[in-house]
């Protein structure tokens, strides 16, 4: 006669497909019944926000966004790209975008189109997309932009000569002296190339928007100051979304735009109700973090149950 199994032994022998169902429910239910989980902003996110904000309204300053990922990591990186682009468009920071992966090109266009929905920004004046450049040109372009951006990139994604565009000509933007911040959105070690070649050689500020998997690898560069700031996965995106809402797109009592300078005090007291934000693309990461919180709690419970079960069956085996 077979020995009767206890609860933990049954759990250990559970078909993994039941666990998949529980994981799916732990994510679907918080998405359908949204609540306002508090988003605490970490220092690497703050630093990046402050750096971008310091370029607000400056004609002779620009930032470069490099899209180094495909659709498989869009869930983590796309919300941070939209949030940063919204920040730039709102605060009139000149933005250049580029990608070296064919699959990144449509995502780059999608991010720009999503962010500019609420702004009257024009390509070539307020922002410019350098488009897709073959990966073989990655290093020549990274090094070439240290001398002359117009020479290194040559044409934008509409085939216009970069040198002749008003965004470059009017501000006298020539190289990394003016385009002094590069943000790489990556699910790989692409950020390292920017640190190695652009930062080490030209002293340009480099920041990263990375998937959570890559975040641990990049903390060493953050600790040494080689990264100006970093957004780590969906959490980093949620933090940046919050900063944009609290400071950059802040509206006064009459509903008029009144952007504020970054302040820890204001941030501490700020409370944004997600249901008050109409456009879902402005809160994608924060909605996602609600589900993430529940999923993490569930995983912690699973780990505890699994360990208890493991020790009970081990002791049983010994006896």
């Amino acid at each position, binding site marked *: 006669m077979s020995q009767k199994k206890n609860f933990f032994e049954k759990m250990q022998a559970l078909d993994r497909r039941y666990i998949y169902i529980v994981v799916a429910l732990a994510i679907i239910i918080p998405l359908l019944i949204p609540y306002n989980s508090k988003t605490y902003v970490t220092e690497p996110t703050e630093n990046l926000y402050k750096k971008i904000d310091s370029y607000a309204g400056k004609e002779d300053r620009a930032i470069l966004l490099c899209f180094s990922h495909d659709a498989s990591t869009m869930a983590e990186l796309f919300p941070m790209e939209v949030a940063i682009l919204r920040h730039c468009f709102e605060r009139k920071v000149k933005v250049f975008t580029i990608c070296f992966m*064919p699959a990144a090109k449509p995502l780059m266009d999608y991010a720009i189109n999503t962010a500019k929905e609420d702004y009257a920004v024009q390509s070539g004046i307020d922002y410019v997309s350098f488009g897709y450049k073959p990966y073989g040109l990655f290093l020549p372009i990274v090094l070439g932009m240290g001398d002359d951006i117009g020479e290194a990139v040559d044409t934008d994604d509409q085939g216009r000569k970069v040198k002749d565009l008003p965004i470059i000509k009017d501000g006298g933007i020539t190289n990394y002296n003016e385009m002094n911040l590069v943000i790489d959105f990556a699910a790989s070690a692409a950020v390292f190339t920017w640190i190695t070649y652009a930062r080490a050689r030209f002293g340009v500020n480099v920041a990263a928007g990375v998937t959570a998997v890559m975040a641990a690898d990049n903390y060493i560069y953050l600790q040494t100051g080689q990264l100006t700031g970093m957004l780590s996965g969906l959490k980093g995106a949620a933090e940046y979304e919050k900063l944009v809402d609290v400071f950059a797109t802040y509206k006064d009592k009459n509903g008029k735009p009144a952007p504020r300078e970054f302040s820890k005090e204001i941030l501490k007291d700020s409370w944004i109700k997600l249901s008050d934000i109409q456009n879902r693309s402005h809160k994608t990461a924060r909605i996602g973090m609600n589900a993430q919180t529940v999923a993490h709690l569930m995983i912690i419970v699973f780990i505890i149950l699994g360990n208890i079960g493991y020790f009970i069956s081990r002791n049983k085996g010994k006896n």
Partner: protein
Amino acid sequence: MTFEMIGNLIAAFFTLSIFSFLYKDNPFYKFAEAIFIGVSMGYAIPLAYEKAFIPFVYSPIFLEHRFSIIIPSLMGILYIFRFSKNLSWLSRYPIVFGMAIVGMGVPQAMHSSVLVQMRSSMLPIDNINTALIFIGTITILLYFFFSKEHKGLYGKVTNLGIWYMMIGFGASFGFTVMARISLLIGRIQFLVGDVLGLIK
């Protein structure tokens, strides 16, 4: 039905087809996988042709008559010999050229990955963080010193190094779990929000 709705329904079908693998391998999963590979290649090849071959090979040689471009183009063609058993040695030439570029990055990589990191580990120990970094760096370095047996006091010190590494691996694994859950959240947000319109 708008173009966006049709696009969303097709994307939802393929998402569910891929998820169906969680139950077991099936024709829907195989179909979605094959379509994904085909579409990726179908998209990447013309884009590379238009953005790489035309501006950097065809136009300079045939339109601008810069015949020096023929040399790197021929070198690039040598990569194709990788598929030939007898002539695959020819593909080593462009690889060697590529390795020379890697060599160019060695001094700069030394700077950012070794020298700057060392400098940051040699800060005055005036707070708990720098003290923890100091202890961690020393104990882990000692752990990887295998000329002395890890026994006695030395063994205890190296054991502390193992603990440091375990905490590092744990943090890394925690981030990985967060990343995987985020990807699932992204897909479910698409299905529940964009397709069904249930997220407000």
